[in-house]
């Protein structure tokens, strides 16, 4: 007779081994996109998950950060990430990109709801943050719930493409605190949107961005941006990484260097970074970048 049961459906639970999950890929090199996830220096487990796939001109990345106050946070991040990633990769290149993103988020939510879990230690239902970006050769579509971020960096501009769903942003938007004050507050890491059974309702933030010049899309969890928050600082860091090494400018080495930056600053959280090199249609540097793999 089992004495552990799912808190949602009552089904008996198989014994689950604790510790790192087996066979999870830590680094993904997909040509013009690359990324990795790292446990960091403080946390004992990695509750981030990364999906990254390139097919032809289309690149898809999904990054989920398991909410540590929830049960099965790592499972939530893993299943949400895989489900949304598969959904976005399978969606037709000619379809409506916003609809594809909405569908992927819905699939990820269902996947998280399906996780068996057991109530213990005051943990909430399994939940995770969500960010996904899809480059279809013309536009970048980004969907987000929570506090992972997407940045765009090219030769002329540095942009943050997402707003955090967070306590900090609520305080700043309400004019109650400056961003610096709010980020120093004990509540700074509280999020206001996530995936899971107790997720607040409402449509997710979805933005579409058509790059004018070739550049880099960087998607990351707060394990990185905690150490380099503003778009300009973030861009400076990316450019410094590129300048530091003559050959460290392919997406995966850039992502590694960004993770190293977080580790060098304490690595207090799990760190996940995905980098997609985007060659804008009609950009003069396009051929040069793709043949040499290096920005000029």
């Amino acid at each position, binding site marked *: *007779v*089992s*004495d552990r*049961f*799912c*808190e*949602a*459906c*009552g089904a*008996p639970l198989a014994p689950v081994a604790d510790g790192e999950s087996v066979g999870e890929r830590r680094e993904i090199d997909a040509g013009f996109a690359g990324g990795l996830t790292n446990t960091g220096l403080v946390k004992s487990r990695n509750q981030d998950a990364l999906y990254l796939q390139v097919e032809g001109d289309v690149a898809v990345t999904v990054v989920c950060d398991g909410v540590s106050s929830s049960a099965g946070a790592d499972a939530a991040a893993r299943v949400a990430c895989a489900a949304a990633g598969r959904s976005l990769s399978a969606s037709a290149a000619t379809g409506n990109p916003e609809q594809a993103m909405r569908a992927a988020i819905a699939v990820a939510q269902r996947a998280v709801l399906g996780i068996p879990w057991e109530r213990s230690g005051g943990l909430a239902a399994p939940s995770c943050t969500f960010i996904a970006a899809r480059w279809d050769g013309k536009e970048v579509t980004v969907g987000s719930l929570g506090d992972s971020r997407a940045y765009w960096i090219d030769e002329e501009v540095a942009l943050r493409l997402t707003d955090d769903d967070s306590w900090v942003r609520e305080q700043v938007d309400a004019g109650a605190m400056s961003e610096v004050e709010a980020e120093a507050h004990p509540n700074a890491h509280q999020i206001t949107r996530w995936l899971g059974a107790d997720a607040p309702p409402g449509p997710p933030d979805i933005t579409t961005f058509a790059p004018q010049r070739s550049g880099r899309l960087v998607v990351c969890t707060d394990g990185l941006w905690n150490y380099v928050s503003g778009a300009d600082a973030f861009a400076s860091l990316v450019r410094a990484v590129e300048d530091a090494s003559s050959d460290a400018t392919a997406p995966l080495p850039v992502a590694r260097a960004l993770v190293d930056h977080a580790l060098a600053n304490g690595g207090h959280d799990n760190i996940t970074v995905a980098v997609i090199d985007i060659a804008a249609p009609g950009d003069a540097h396009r051929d040069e970048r793709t043949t040499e793999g290096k920005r000029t």
Partner: protein
Amino acid sequence: MTNFSAETYQNSFLPVGGTEVNAVVRISASNAQAPPGGAAPAAELILIDVSGSMHYPRSKIREARAAAAAAIDCIRDGAYFGIVAGNTEASEVFPGNGELAAASDATRREAKRRVDALKAGGGTAIGQWLQCADRLFAAHAGAIRHAILLTDGQNADETPEELDATLSACAGNFQCDCRGVGADWQVSELREISSTLMGDVALIREPEQMADDFAALMQRAMGRAVNDVALRLWTPQGATIRFVKQVTPDTEDLSDRRVAAGNLEGDYATGAWGDESRDYHVCIEVPARDVGEQMLAGRVKLVVDREVLSETKILAEWTEDERLSTVLNPQVVQASGYHDYAQVAQEGVSALRDGDLDTATTKLAKAAQLAHALGDQDKLRELGLVVDIVDAATGQVRPKSKIDELDMMEVDAGSTKTVRRTRPGS
């Protein structure tokens, strides 16, 4: 610190395709005592009927005074208390001024002196008494609030709707045990009050029996140390709760008391607890699973002050083996038996009053069979007051040719009382 324990009695095996899960959950409290820092604050009120009928016979008002005095003597030092006399209005006999007094030798003596001077006169509006109690208890929100209500007549001077409205307003604010003396009050009316206010109801046949009963009630109230205890029932997605019923010490359907506590959980208030043990019959309908599979069909937690003090599981497992699935759990059989008994006994008495002897005979025959199966000699004795029991086992009964109203009331009022027993022969 009070210890609560929870235990499930059930046969968890269901036949192929079976969906109904029955279980009796036994909650026991031991070493009931107040949280550190002093005695649990208690607030007690005695509500005495002083309508004109309390003079007939004159022993009623005299014994009511004696009963109140006996109860007052059981109130421990420091507990807050008050006396309310009720007719069509409620008057604060002691201490007055909308307050309760802390019990001491002096206040108990003064309260008894004033009770001794009570005179009867006027009609009956019980809602007024309860409203007065509600006002007096309002200043003692942190205390275990309990009242004893004594009446000898029907609630003639207000409408049932007025009483209902008052009960709704008072529900959850205090608990109230109801006692009826003589044959002129309505069992169903007092049962409605005691049920809503989480107390019990009983008939006092003779005025002389009042004092002992009141003392026992007050002693029980003084033994309660943990307030606002709730049963929290978790059921899985897709399940339906058929009912949640208290089995002992009284049968009481709690299903409508459910207050949602999150998505899959609901709370059922059970009032204040002393050192005691109560049984609850939980019936849950779950989606059938395949043979050999098992599931958690429910979980009962005991919640005090948002803290879970004890919990127990209700399981379901499906089997093709009928030797397993057809076995009845004795506690579940007893729980069902007592609930069925209360229903048929009340319906039987009601039919007797209406002169519908056929229905009365059928219902009371069923009641006798149930009492026999339960092995409950008290119930058989009570039924014997209104019917001649030819053979309890086969349910052969004959209504008595002349039936005393008090006897019918005793069967009626006693129908919800339960005693824990296993089945005879098991």
